[in-house]
Each structure stands twice: as structure tokens, then as C-alpha cells.
């Protein structure tokens, strides 16, 4: 960086609007219509990234005020206060204080508040007014406030705060021009609020000041100056993240200092005092400005809630709603997914037809094109699920769903917010893991991410279907309970039954910590904003395709290489000779074609057996033998690690049936039934072997797409690696137990 650039900020602040790009932070409580306002102000000009080291998304949108003035609007996560208790919550504080790595310094704060609930919303505003930055307040949902009988005088609030207050209806786009004008004026004026700020007792402020002095002495160790607001949070938030972070950097000496400051201030109960003073301040600010009716009129939202959270109708509607969500991701997305699959199959075939045989053709068709198809095939499910989630969340139902389901999930140490991600994972863990974004608590979210892939997704169904069809007798229990149906039910149950203790153990060990509060607002119902809903769907689809897609594609090419090479040309010779012999024979074309197909299938099978995957299958056979598997089953299982559904095709190839086998295929079932251990007449499969393969597939982490999504959602490799390891171990021991118990029970026949 040149020296001229270092001195630039000084000249910029002295010059009159010499800078044309400003940075403004948008912040507010959850459910205030923050996303709607953000989308209304910035439209499609948004950029989504990640803050380093945390799972919070960094969302920045461009807002053009006039030809010369552009604003980078940073959308901060919804929060009720600046008292952060986790790294994720600290992001908002750091961005506001201008000390967030990779984020611009803030020129002004745009605070959005729900006009229908001013008291609680102004608690956060009391903290924002202390930032010594210009603050513009957007008082949203004025229509809802009116329906609740509230009369709000924005001018009076503005006068009391000494800053700009603009009444808007973000979902109807009402008075956004007024808001833009207020932001522009605030940026030109560069004045923090001039009204009275919350007045804390001298004993408290004195301790903050002296703590601040001490922290100044640590500037070199910290590599930055500590802002007074941070010193405030360190002192007041016992066990909060601001304290934890400094403790880590400054060591135990700092803990003692902090404790002595707290003891000196001990005449006042610190956190309670902050809350008391702030709510007192809010009361004063709103005193002459907000008039409430003595008897609040019954609102439509209350009437809806009487039905939707009623013990009977509410439960019924919830169950119906979840059925609808589940059905749509499970079955309605199938035609679209089939369309995408067949498009890429067709593309692969037509590209293949125009290329010469060889590794390049094979890589492009079986590696790249199949890989891209393997990424895009998930899009319909992701888009459909997020359409539902965005709709349910934007209309206000999502928090009711959490309210209804919380008790059930609290047994596993989770909260009601984990319900939808878990349910979605029965269709596919990829959208399920992405849906955990609705869980604010980082530990709850991570636990949900880690157990969601245990739910039996739709890709496991083909495996269950073919093995059940081939090996579970078509008997019934007690004359009506089908044994096959029961086995399928058991396979779906395995994941769920295992997930509960896994979640519980995770919450007791690796993700141990204070139980997060389950205080959630049940906001008034409203008509969803279509722009917010569609942008959310678009956002999720794009994030998946770009970030997870690249990893999935890379994995597909590696898998292709492992199943293709070494590809010794000599292997093909006897098969080619056989083909030539058939062609030279005097049979009809029909018979020739059939015979050649048989030979080609046998050739593919031989190549697969000679491939690196085949070698690996032989190498790991001793490991899988206690599960009742031979090297071919082992190889098929290994080849299915990137995507479990390929096992059907792999089994097809390895038993010389060709790649196009599917779970309905009679010939594959027959081939599995008649397969024997190599060099022995003993049947390879029996009921315990089939069950052990199914249990393995039920519990194993065989999905590169899920792991790539976990990597993206947790912003690192640690958790995908953990997820892979624990699930694979679980699968191995689960399958081992199943086989051994099955044999002991005499099911081996």
C-alpha cells in the first residue's frame, strides 16, 4: 500500500463529499421486516460472502442514492441487543465498531424497528445511539401498529432522540424515498444522535472508563485499540463473548483485573442495571410519542393463532403442512430431477457419440458431464424446500412450528427450530443442512447439521428396495403386517433412533455449553413478501450450485478416474476378438446385437474389477468380512462413498449386467440371489448380509454433496471430516452387529 493511500481517510473527511461510496449497516430485531427492506432498497444488486471463521453470511447490497452517492448496505443478522454471547453474534458488534476483518468502516447505521412493538425494539436502538455514528431509524410496519390501535408520533420520537426517524411500510414500498433522503442527509451531516443518552450510574461508568484505560495498555498485544463500547460489553456481560475473546488473548491476569472491576461496581447488579436504565430511557423517549389504547383491540393475528396453535386444530394443521412440505420435496421434485438427469444422460450420450473412444471421452462423459448433472439434480429439492421455508418464515408461521415442536426435540437436547431441517433430510440432507440457517444458536445448529444426514434420504431408497426385494421373503407377520414393509420401516427408523442419542451425546460433549434460551418472538402474521421469498430461493440455489457444486464436481472426476484406470488395453483384446467373431457369424442382426451387448457388459465388469476401486475392494475385504461381505460388495460400498445411489449401477456392472440397472430390475435381483463366494458354491447373500448392507447404507456418510454442503455451511473442513468419520464408524459397527446377531439368530439359513 502506498503512503498516499494511508493518509487518504484524513483528506476524505476534510473534503466536502469527496467520497462517493459510503458504508451503512442495516440492523434490527428479528421479524421487523429487515430482509424485506434490504431487498427493497438494493434489489438484485447483492453480494453474499462469508465472514472469516464464523458461519454468519456477509450480505452486502448496493444502493444508489444519486449519480454521485452510492451506499454499500451491510445486512447484519437480526439481534435483540449488542450483548453478544457467541462469535456469530459478535460479528454485528465488530462491524458496527469498524473492527471486523474484511468489512469497511461504517459511516452510518440504519436501524429498523417494528412500530407495533416499539418498547422492545428501542432497547437495541438505545445501544445503537451510543455508537457515536449517525443513526437513521426506519419505523416499519406502521400499518400493523395502527391495527393494534397504536398512535405513533414520529416527529416526537425524532425530537427526543435527536436523529432522523422515518415511518415506512417496507413490504408495500411505502415512503422508501423519504428513507433514502434521510440516509443521504445523515451521511452529509455526519452527526451522531444529539438527544439524551441512557444515563448509567457513575459507579458503573467509572469502572468502564478505568477498564478502558487498562485495555489501552494492551493495545500492542491485541493489535488494536479497544473501543469504549467494547469495554462496556466486557464489563457488563458476564460470560459474554466480548469477555471470552479478551480472556483468550490476555490470559488469566486479565480475568483478575476484570473481576476486581466488577467487584468495585458490585453495589449495582450489572446486567440488570443496564436493562433497567435502557428500558427507562426507552420509556422516556416514547412517553409523549406513542399512545396505546387502554384495551388493545383483538387483532386478526390473534384470531389466526387461536386456530394454528390450538392443541387439536393447530397440531392437525401442522401435521398437514409438514406432509405437504415432505411430499413436495420427496415426490413433486421427482419429475424435475428426472428431467435434469435425462438431459445430462442425453448430453453425455450425444457428446460421447461425437468423440473417439479413450480416456478423454470417458472423463468428459462419465466424469464431468455426470458430475455437473449430479450437482444440478439437487436443485429442484433445494428450491422447493426453500420456497416453503421462505414462505413459512416470512408469514410468521415458522416460529409457531418451533413453538409446537419444541417439547419433542428438547428430549434430544435440541429445540423446535431443528424440526424442519430434520424432516427435510428425509428427502435429502443437502437442503436439510442448508435449512439449519433458521437456527440461531450455533451449537444447536451444528448438532442439527451433524445428525440430519442420519435421516434416511431418498437416495437410500433404491438400496433398500433392491435388497428387500431380493432377500426379504414376501411373508406377513400375523397375517397382515408385511415383512418387507416392516424391514423398510425399520431402515427408516434406524437413522432416527440413532440420531437421538448422537445429538444428546454431542450436546453433552463436543458441543457442550449453556442451554441456549428458547425465547422466541411469535410475530404477527402477515402476507409474505414475494420478492423476499423469491430472492431467498434464488440465493440458496446459487450458493449451493457455486460453492458446494465445485467440490461435488471435483469428487466426481476423482471417482471416475478410480473406476477407469489403469484401463489396460490388453484386457479388451479377448472381448474385441469375441465381438469380431460374433459379427462375422451368420446370425441375424437382432441376435448379434444381443450377443455383443453381453460381451460389452462382461468387458465393463472386467475393467471395473481391474480398476483402482477393484484393487481397493480386494484390499479391504478382510475389514468387511466380519460384516459378511466379499470384495465385490466392499468395492461397491467404497465406490458409493461419493453418492450412495451409485451402488445399484456398480453392483450391476460388477455382476456383469451393465450400467443401466435400476432398483426395479429383475435381472439384478436374480443376479444377487444367485451370486456365490468366488471359488465356492456358497451363496454370497443371505438375510443377515442383506440387512448388514442396508444398515451400513442407512448410517454411512456416503454423499459428497452433503459433505460439501456441510463444509460450506460451517465454513471449514473440520465438521465435514467429523461427520464423515463418526457416521462411517457408526455404519461399520452397526452393520457388524446386524450381521453377527442375524447369524446368531440363525437367519443365515
Amino acid at each position: 500500500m502506498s503512503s498516499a493511500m494511508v493518509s487518504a481517510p484524513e483528506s476524505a473527511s476534510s473534503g466536502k463529499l469527496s467520497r462517493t461510496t459510503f458504508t451503512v449497516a442495516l440492523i434490527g430485531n428479528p421479524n421487523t421486516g429487515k430482509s424485506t427492506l434490504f431487498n427493497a432498497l438494493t434489489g438484485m444488486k447483492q453480494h453474499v460472502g462469508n465472514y472469516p471463521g464464523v458461519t454468519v453470511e456477509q450480505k452486502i447490497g448496493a444502493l444508489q442514492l444519486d449519480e454521485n452517492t452510492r451506499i454499500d448496505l451491510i445486512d447484519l443478522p437480526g439481534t435483540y441487543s449488542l450483548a453478544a454471547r457467541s462469535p456469530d453474534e459478535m460479528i454485528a458488534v465488530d462491524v458496527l465498531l469498524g473492527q471486523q476483518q474484511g468489512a469497511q468502516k461504517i459511516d452510518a447505521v440504519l436501524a429498523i424497528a417494528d412500530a407495533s412493538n416499539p418498547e422492545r425494539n428501542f432497547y437495541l436502538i438505545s445501544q445503537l445511539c451510543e455508537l457515536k455514528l449517525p443513526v437513521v431509524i426506519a419505523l416499519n410496519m406502521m400499518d400493523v401498529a395502527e391495527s393494534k390501535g397504536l398512535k405513533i408520533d414520529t416527529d416526537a420520537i425524532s425530537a427526543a432522540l435527536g436523529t432522523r426517524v422515518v415511518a415506512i411500510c417496507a413490504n408495500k414500498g411505502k415512503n422508501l424515498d423519504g428513507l433514502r433522503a434521510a440516509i443521504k442527509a445523515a451521511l452529509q451531516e455526519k452527526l451522531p444522535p444529539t438527544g439524551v443518552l441512557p444515563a448509567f450510574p457513575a459507579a458503573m461508568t467509572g469502572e468502564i472508563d478505568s477498564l478502558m484505560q487498562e485495555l489501552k495498555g494492551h493495545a500492542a498485544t491485541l493489535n488494536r485499540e479497544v473501543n469504549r463500547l467494547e469495554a462496556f460489553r466486557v464489563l457488563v456481560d458476564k460470560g459474554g463473548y466480548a469477555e471470552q475473546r479478551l480472556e483468550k488473548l490476555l490470559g488469566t491476569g486479565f480475568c483478575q483485573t476484570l473481576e476486581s472491576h466488577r467487584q468495585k461496581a458490585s453495589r449495582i447488579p450489572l446486567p440488570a442495571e443496564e436493562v433497567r436504565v435502557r428500558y427507562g430511557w426507552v420509556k422516556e423517549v416514547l412517553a409523549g410519542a406513542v399512545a396505546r389504547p387502554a384495551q388493545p383491540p383483538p387483532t386478526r393475528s390473534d384470531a389466526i393463532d387461536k386456530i394454528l396453535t390450538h392443541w387439536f386444530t393447530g397440531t392437525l394443521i401442522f401435521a398437514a403442512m409438514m406432509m405437504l412440505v415432505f411430499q413436495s420435496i420427496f415426490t413433486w421434485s421427482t419429475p424435475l430431477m428426472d428431467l435434469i438427469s435425462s438431459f445430462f444422460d442425453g448430453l453425455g450420450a450425444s457428446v460421447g457419440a461425437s468423440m473417439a473412444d479413450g480416456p478423454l471421452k470417458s472423463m468428459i462423459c462419465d466424469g464431468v458431464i455426470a458430475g455437473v448433472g449430479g450437482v444440478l439434480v439437487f436443485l429442484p429439492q433445494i428450491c422447493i424446500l426453500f420456497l416453503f421455508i421462505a414462505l413459512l418464515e416470512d408469514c410468521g408461521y415458522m416460529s409457531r412450528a418451533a413453538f409446537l415442536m419444541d417439547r419433542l426435540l428438547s428430549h434430544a437436547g435440541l429445540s423446535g427450530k431443528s424440526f424442519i431441517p430434520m424432516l427435510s433430510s428425509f428427502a435429502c440432507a443437502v437442503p436439510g443442512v442448508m435449512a439449519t440457517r433458521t437456527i440461531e444458536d450455533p451449537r444447536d445448529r451444528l448438532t442439527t447439521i451433524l445428525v440430519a444426514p442420519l435421516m434416511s434420504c431418498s437416495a437410500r431408497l433404491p438400496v433398500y428396495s433392491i435388497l428387500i426385494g431380493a432377500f426379504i421373503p414376501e411373508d406377513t407377520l400375523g397375517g397382515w403386517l408385511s415383512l418387507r414393509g416392516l424391514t423398510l420401516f425399520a431402515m427408516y427408523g434406524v437413522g432416527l433412533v440413532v440420531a437421538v442419542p448422537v445429538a444428546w451425546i454431542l450436546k453433552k460433549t463436543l458441543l457442550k455449553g449453556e442451554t441456549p434460551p428458547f425465547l422466541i418472538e411469535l410475530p404477527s402474521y402477515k402476507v409474505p413478501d414475494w420478492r423476499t421469498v423469491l430472492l431467498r430461493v434464488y440465493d440458496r440455489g446459487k450458493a449451493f450450485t457455486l460453492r458446494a457444486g465445485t467440490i461435488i464436481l471435483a469428487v466426481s472426476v476423482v471417482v471416475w478416474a478410480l473406476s477407469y484406470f489403469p484401463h489396460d488395453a490388453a484386457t479388451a483384446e479377448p472381448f474385441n476378438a469375441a465381438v469380431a467373431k460374433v459379427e462375422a457369424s451368420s446370425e441375424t442382426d437382432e441376435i448379434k446385437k444381443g450377443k455383443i451387448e453381453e460381451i460389452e457388459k462382461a468387458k465393463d465388469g472386467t475393467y471395473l474389477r481391474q480398476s483402482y476401486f477393484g484393487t481397493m475392494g480386494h484390499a479391504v475385504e478382510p475389514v468387511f468380512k466380519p460384516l459378511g461381505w466379499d470384495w465385490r460388495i466392499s468395492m461397491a460400498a467404497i465406490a458409493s462413498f461419493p453418492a450412495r445411489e451409485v451402488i445399484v449401477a456398480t453392483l450391476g456392472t460388477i455382476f456383469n449386467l451393465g450400467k443401466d440397472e435400476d432398483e426395479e430390475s429383475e435381472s439384478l435381483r436374480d443376479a444377487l440371489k444367485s451370486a456365490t463366494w468366488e471359488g465356492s458354491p456358497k451363496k454370497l447373500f443371505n438375510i443377515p448380509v442383506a440387512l448388514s448392507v442396508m444398515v451400513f447404507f442407512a448410517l454411512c456418510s456416503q454423499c459428497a454433496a452433503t459433505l460439501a454442503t456441510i463444509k460450506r455451511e460451517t465454513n471449514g473442513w473440520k465438521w465435514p471430516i467429523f461427520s464423515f468419520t463418526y457416521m462411517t464408524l457408526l455404519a461399520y459397527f452397526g452393520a457388524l452387529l446386524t450381521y453377527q446377531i442375524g447369524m446368531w439368530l440363525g437367519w443365515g439359513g
Partner: protein
Amino acid sequence: MPTLDRLKPGQRATVKSVSGEGSAIYQRLMEMGVFEGAEIEVVRFAPLGDPMELRLHGYNLSVRKSEALNVQVEVLA
């Protein structure tokens, strides 16, 4: 003194004190407006008996019973 979790739907109460200072739950309760002097109405309980829905400061809040246990209240007639 009764705690908030003991109230029945439709009952109203004033918060007398909140215990558990320094915990995340205490802090969150405070921020959400559950502090000394606040007036709270119990709206309903979830179908499985927990959590409970409250109305305070003109908005609705869902709280687990184990959290409401920290709030000492005086029941209003």
C-alpha cells in the same frame, strides 16, 4: 412467591424479580422485556404442555417452562 411457569392461560402478573444473573437465559429474558415491573399475560401452552406463550409490551413471546421458572411474579386479579 409464585413463578411465571405456574400461571394459567388468561392470568396476568407483574414481574417481581428474575433470578439466574449472569446466565444467557437471564440476559435474554431481560432484553426481551421480562424485568422487574413488567406486566405479563399467559396466553396459552403448547399442545405438548411446553413451551408457553406470553404477551408483554404488546407482543407475543414463547418461553420454555424451565426458563419461566426464573421469573418470580405477583398475580394480578
